[in-house]
């Protein structure tokens, strides 16, 4: 059982007030706030162990490298992978770009990439650009009115022509939990590679890459209570071995001469340049923190909060809720007569931080037929009381606009 009010004490930023009111942070899907233990870990690392990794043979260099590589092990364990299958990137977006670049090299004119209609721009634009360059075809698995994927359409759209199926696990707009295991099986049946965008799922659900049988999965650190500037790409070793690097430079090479270069082993082949070393240390501490809470409990908490939020929000007159009844971590809505940004601006004055707009998913919003929504998203530090503050804030906004 998650005790959000107790957990909140671990987050220094949430002790602040906004406009004299308790700060109620409901934008964790954009980025999550940070626990003291994570901040402390980064501070301590900078003060006691910082040096470049995989280079210095002096004590600090050894220590920094050891700690950095221990986080790789930790991340691997967290999603049930092997440590050489974990690549640190600067973001989930960079991971998606890495995949589009490196997998794209082997695709040929007419090959198909299958996405869903609920992708975030980060798992959409890289594939679109690749398709443009290599004359590939991008297809989309349809979204049903209830905010879930049309699996019948998925089965029809996934054919022998499909080379890559890439899908978001949890929608950052609707909170839908997609049947990714089934989608991965569908891809494999047709000989395609299966990719999962775990940016919104890894912070809220137990994710096991072996159980899902995905070929690749990526997520960002900052949504997982970790620092910004660090992301993770998981890939099955057999694929990573055969892929060409995305970025070239230091640390990713085995040997360089004036005539050419050969590549380092996986995963370092994909980590060119000095990585975000301290960011990785922070990610490790964030994983320690959330693991101690228990991912099963975290998931239960996320689902309960959404169920409660949907139940309470539905009571407000003039509200439209988007997404399925059973979602996680995210709820989107609009209020009749008040544009989303104005709802957000009025909620701000009540100490509430929510997001308004298209949430980097413009095609999905056009499908919903709205230019934007208001989105409230939750994390382990949010309690049901936060939903009550939100509901009261919306009612107050409606009063202002009724004047």
């Amino acid at each position, binding site marked *: 059982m998650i005790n959000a009010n107790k957990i909140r004490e671990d987050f220094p930023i949430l002790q*602040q*007030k*906004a406009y004299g009111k308790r*700060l109620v942070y409901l934008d964790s899907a954009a980025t999550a706030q940070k626990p003291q233990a994570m901040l402390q870990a980064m501070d301590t690392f900078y003060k006691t162990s910082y040096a470049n990794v995989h280079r210095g043979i002096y004590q600090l260099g050894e220590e920094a490298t050891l700690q950095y590589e221990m986080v790789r092990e930790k991340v691997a364990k967290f999603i049930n992978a092997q440590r050489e299958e974990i690549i640190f990137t600067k973001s989930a977006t960079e991971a998606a770009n890495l995949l589009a670049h490196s997998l794209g090299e082997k695709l040929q004119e007419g090959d198909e990439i299958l996405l869903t209609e609920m992708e975030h721009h980060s798992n959409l634009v890289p594939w679109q650009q690749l398709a443009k360059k290599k004359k590939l075809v991008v297809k989309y698995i349809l979204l049903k009115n209830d905010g879930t994927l049309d699996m019948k359409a998925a089965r029809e759209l996934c054919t022998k022509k499909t080379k890559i199926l890439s899908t978001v696990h949890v929608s950052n707009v609707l909170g839908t939990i997609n049947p990714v295991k089934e989608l991965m099986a569908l891809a494999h049946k047709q000989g395609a590679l299966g990719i999962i965008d775990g940016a919104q799922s890894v912070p809220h659900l137990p994710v096991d890459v072996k159980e899902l049988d995905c070929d690749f999965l990526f997520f960002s650190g900052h949504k997982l209570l970790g620092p910004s500037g660090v992301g993770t790409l998981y890939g099955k070793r057999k694929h990573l071995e055969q892929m060409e690097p995305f970025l070239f430079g230091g640390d990713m090479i085995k040997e360089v001469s004036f005539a050419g270069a050969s590549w380092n082993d996986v995963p370092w082949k994909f980590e060119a340049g000095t990585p975000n070393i301290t960011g990785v240390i922070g990610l490790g501490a964030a994983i320690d923190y959330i693991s101690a809470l228990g991912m099963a409990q975290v998931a239960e908490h996320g689902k309960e909060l959404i169920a409660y939020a949907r139940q309470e929000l539905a009571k407000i007159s003039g509200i439209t809720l988007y997404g399925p009844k059973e979602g996680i971590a995210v709820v989107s809505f609009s209020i009749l007569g*008040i*544009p*989303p*940004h*104005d709802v957000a*601006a*009025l909620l701000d004055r009540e100490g509430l931080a929510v997001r*308004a*707009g*298209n949430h980097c998913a413009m095609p999905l*919003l056009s499908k919903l037929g709205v*230019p*934007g929504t208001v989105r409230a998203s939750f994390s382990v530090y949010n309690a049901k009381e936060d939903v009550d503050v939100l509901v009261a804030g919306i009612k107050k906004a409606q009063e*202002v*606009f009724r*004047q």
Partner: protein
Amino acid sequence: MNATKEKMKENQEAEMKNAGLQEEVRFSDDLYREHILDHFKNPRNFGELRDCTLRHKELNPLCGDEMEIMLKINGQQAQEKKLADISFQGQGCAISMAAASLLSEHVKGKSVEEIKNVQPEEMLGLLGIQVGVVRMKCALLALKTLQKVLEE
């Protein structure tokens, strides 16, 4: 958050100065004052302008705002050109819609040269509210669109 808020306010003031804004203009802290809501709910000069001579559309990806401005210009010589009529249509937040409505009233009948010289501070003065850095785009979308039309 007080220290941060102070800092933000300072930044905002610096930002406004950069945008050529006068410090002495007093802005209300309340974004949704009566006249803003009035102009949002009953926008003036809203809709299609049938005999327009110029039109231009701008987007604000932050809010998903869409703004199209239509103009009817009279006069042949550059110095004589006047804005005989104006209308706008689109969708967006209350701030951007109210700004368009207020601006349309403000510029109707003015010469093209005058309109080209309307400064951001004048627009914010019409709104009479304190607009933060992030929503400055909403407040200035109508003016930006209008001046783009005239450039063409």
